[in-house]
């Protein structure tokens, strides 16, 4: 069994921390991490709860492979009800925090209630305590990290924290761990801050020694690593260019969301691409990219570590940003770049640093700024509203200023912190919000990649690329190539991706492994580590079970099938350029088939038979 078998329950009302055994019956059904934590949330909370009330819970959960030697086995997820969407929120993060938590002997931490005063949780193996957070409340994540490291006089502690944005109520605040890895989406950081929890500090020295079949585990994980190493994507493309290699690809196929998705191609894409990050700059001859970095146990190492041009306007008088840190990933580059029509790589890197420093989801932040820019250009938002910021598409200074204000929750940053949906509603143009269920889109325009329209519309946490990444097939040819402009077969494709992802997200592994691994590679690793006879089929079923449980929760929360839709712009306004020119997204051709494949009613409600079959 490679579950630790133990949960830490933190009652913030009472200020108590209590260990309890992990529900192994549920673990057999939901594996761990995303699935298992969702089960706990569903069992323990009312789906109608106000996300920011003490009655909501926040769960940090590892998977059974978290902390092991399986490649990428360092993930953890944060599960709660999201303030941005009112739906289930489930954000996954890498870095080193999750593994440390597991090494301290915990599968999960469940936060419930609300602390009367700001606190942080300190966990050192079996010892756990809530400590007043007076000296870190009001500080950024980076400052918090430094203060806590010094305070505990321990270089080996791992920290997950929220920044000032979360404290100020920004609805898409992230929980940032290890300085630049984040449980980024859906406002899980906002929930944490609403509970007056500033940070979680973990030091684990117990390790994991309860692998079910150690010899088999060694063998299968080694074989699986070989598969990653020999695969061109995970062995070469991702480590070299990171996710940012997609910038030019997606632009070329005409699916690059640009200027709040008015356009599907960005003329400046190549300047902010993975390739551009390698170009030496004029000032000091150094490229933006310093190196690639890995999360815990990851043999792919796709992470970008970058620096900003020291002479760039954003940091001219700010020496504190003249060092390397987590650099642009594709989603951030898109959301901060093409969606605002900005091709200034350093400005993007700066804005991205600020997103990490103060815990903003760069996708939601960028997309919200893009919506505001469109409203500004329409004259709906004025200079007065923005406090003097010339909020036009292409204005890098405006982006930098917006990032500073939103990170700190000041001035117009407070409005931007509401997210695109509320911002557009506030200014009377709800249709200009590029969101599903209140969550901003990621980097693929569903007019140019039809299947992604279905994936966005049906994602349980609002628009998201990581629930069912049909791009892999439609664009990249993984595992096989499909035509991005047709809708036929996409329902099946999206469902398969969604279910497989549900399983991977519950295991402790990174979903990026699936560019090379199938469940045939993953199942033996889980099976060697855990009791339960984990086959690929069983994993697929776990994924489907998780998906349906999330769906059921959402419906009970009031997020029904009528929210499975896309903004009007994507359904009605045709793409102006590229292969999809003249085309909108044809969700209506895919959705009914999808419902039927899922065993749901035409309204998108899982039938009793489906739920029974899956044991939900």
């Amino acid at each position, binding site marked *: 069994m490679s579950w630790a078998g133990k949960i830490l329950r933190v009652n913030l009302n009472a200020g108590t921390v209590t260990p309890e055994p992990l529900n192994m019956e549920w673990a057999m059904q939901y594996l761990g991490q995303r699935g298992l934590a969702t089960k706990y949330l569903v069992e323990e909370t009312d789906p109608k709860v106000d996300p920011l009330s003490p009655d909501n819970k926040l769960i940090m959960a590892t998977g059974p492979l978290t902390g092991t030697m399986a490649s990428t086995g360092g993930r953890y997820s944060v599960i709660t009800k999201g303030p941005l969407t009112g739906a289930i929120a489930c954000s996954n993060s890498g870095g080193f925090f999750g593994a440390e938590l597991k090494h301290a002997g915990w599968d999960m931490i469940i936060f419930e209630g609300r602390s009367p005063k700001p606190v942080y949780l300190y966990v050192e193996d079996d010892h756990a305590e809530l400590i007043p957070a007076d000296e870190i409340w009001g500080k950024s994540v980076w400052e918090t990290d*430094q203060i806590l*490291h*010094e*305070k*505990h*006089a*321990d*270089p*080996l502690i791992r920290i997950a924290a929220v920044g000032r944005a979360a404290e100020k109520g920004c609805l898409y605040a992230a929980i940032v761990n290890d300085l630049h890895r984040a449980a980024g989406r859906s406002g899980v950081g906002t929930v944490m801050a609403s509970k007056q929890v500033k940070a979680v500090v973990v030091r684990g020295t117990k390790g994991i020694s309860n692998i079910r079949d150690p010899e088999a585990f060694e063998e299968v994980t080694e074989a699986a690593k070989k598969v990653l190493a020999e695969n061109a994507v995970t062995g070469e493309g991702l480590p070299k260019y990171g996710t940012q290699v997609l910038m030019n690809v997606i632009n070329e196929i005409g699916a690059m969301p640009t200027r709040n998705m008015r356009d599907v191609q960005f003329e400046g894409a190549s300047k902010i691409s993975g390739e551009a990050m390698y170009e030496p700059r004029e000032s000091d001859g150094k490229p933006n990219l310093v190196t690639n970095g890995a999360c815990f146990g990851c043999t792919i190492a796709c992470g970008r570590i970058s620096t900003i041009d020291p002479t760039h306007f954003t940091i001219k008088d700010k020496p504190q940003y003249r060092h390397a840190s987590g650099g642009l990933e594709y989603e951030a580059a898109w959301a901060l770049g093409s969606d605002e029509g900005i091709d200034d790589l350093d400005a993007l890197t700066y804005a991205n640093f600020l997103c990490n420093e103060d815990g903003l989801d760069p996708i939601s932040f960028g997309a919200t700024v893009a919506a505001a820019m469109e409203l500004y250009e329409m004259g709906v938002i004025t200079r007065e509203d923005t406090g003097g910021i010339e909020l036009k598409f292409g204005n890098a200074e405006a982006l930098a200023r917006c990032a500073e204000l939103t990170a700190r929750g000041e001035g117009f940053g407070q409005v931007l912190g509401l997210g695109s949906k509320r911002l557009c509603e506030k200014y009377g143009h709800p249709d200009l919000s590029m969101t599903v269920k209140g969550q901003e889109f990621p980097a693929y325009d569903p007019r140019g990649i039809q299947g992604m329209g279905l994936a966005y519309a049906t994602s349980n946490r609002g628009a998201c690329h990581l629930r069912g990444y049909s791009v892999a097939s439609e664009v990249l040819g993984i595992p096989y190539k499909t035509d991005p402009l047709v809708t036929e077969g996409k329902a099946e494709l999206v469902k398969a991706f969604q279910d497989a992802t549900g399983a991977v997200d519950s295991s402790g592994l990174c979903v990026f492994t699936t560019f090379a691994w199938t469940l045939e590679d993953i199942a033996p690793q889980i099976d060697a580590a855990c009791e339960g006879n984990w086959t690929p089929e069983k994993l697929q079923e776990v994924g489907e079970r998780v998906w349906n449980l999330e769906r059921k929760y959402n419906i009970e929360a009031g997020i029904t099938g009528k929210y499975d839709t896309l903004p009007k712009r994507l359904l009605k306004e045709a793409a102006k350029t590229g292969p999809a020119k003249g085309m909108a997204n044809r969700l209506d051709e895919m959705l009914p088939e999808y419902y039927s494949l899922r065993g749901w009613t035409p309204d998108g409600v899982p039938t009793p038979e489906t739920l029974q079959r899956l044991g939900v």
Partner: protein
Amino acid sequence: MRHLIIGAGPAGVIAAEHLRETDPQAGILLIGDEPEPPYSRMALPYYLTGNIDERGTHLRKSADHFDRLGIELRTGTRVTAIEPADKHVRLEDGREEAYDRLLLATGSSPATPPIPGIEQEGVTPCWTLEQGRAIASGARPDSPVVLLGAGFIGSIVLEALARRGVELHVVEMGDRMVPRMMNETAGGLLKEWCEKKGVKVHVSTRATAIQSGRNGHRLAVELEGGEVLDADLVITATGVRPNTGLLEGSGVQVDQGILIDRNMQTSVEGIYAAGDVAQGRDFSTGEYSVQAIQPTAAEHGRLAALNMAGRNVPHQGTLNMNVLDTLGLISSSFGLWQGVEGGDHAELLNRPRYRYVNLQFEEDRLVGGTCLGLTEHIGVLHGLIQSRLPLGVWKERLMQDPTRLMEAYLACTQSLSACKVLH
């Protein structure tokens, strides 16, 4: 060439081994006055706690170790005089042993504090294996024991006694524990820790008398101020003195310990000294002092051997350093832990977790340090100090976060981007 070594502690044994390595033909005689095979005082506390048996304290484990190396070992043999003019030593039984080169590695002995009643039965230092045995049989669980002295050795003995479950009182003249190894903050933290673990620590006081006992106990220790502590056993750990007694009339000059030059030679040609008895060169100050610690004894032994064998290897000085485990709280100190005039220092304290780091700099070089509750990679403090490595930008970084020692060392010694480092 015949080498004679007096003292079969670590300095003597290591010297003998290095002599053999350096000079395969030489005769080597190693004389120890205790009846045991060469053993380590460092290991005594672990013997006391029952972690190891007597054999576990032995410096060398295989029975034929010295035979195999062609080193003649004579234990239970006391040297009574040295006669440099004739190049021989005189033994207790009147016999003589000739030498070409002589190494004095006679170690040190516990000082007896001038306290009335100190000579009574039940009052003992914890220094020899024999004394260890006596303490092991006398210190029963829950019986009251008074430990006089909370210096380095006192604190090691403290650990062993507390683990035996005795009711322990510690009496220290200084205002904190290990006053000569740590500053107020660290020594104070250590005291708090011991008290938390149930040891009563009395500082800034001394025993004024040891009387015969009351309440069914063998002894009673009277403290300055009048308090009286019951005791079944009193253990003294109030410092050690170099064993220089047999040098009288030999012409070998003695200050605190035996005076030696950089080649480990005493004032008398052909006679060398090493270990606790030697007043050797201190790395940090360049001055000569008695360090009386295991790593110094080992280094002295090695260097003395090389020089005795005819190599000219000057001693660069040994870094003074200590590591202590006090009821699970591990502390260490290195070099000029108290700092130098005009130098900077960095300090990090986490009182609730009993963690403390203190670094002392001279310009951008590390000259000393103290760690409490931190054991990871602490040896690098030794390396940074001894290499006198200019830290450059890393000094500022260490000032901000003194726990980044290992990073500082790596960044200053290796090119992180290009160089291939072989291990």
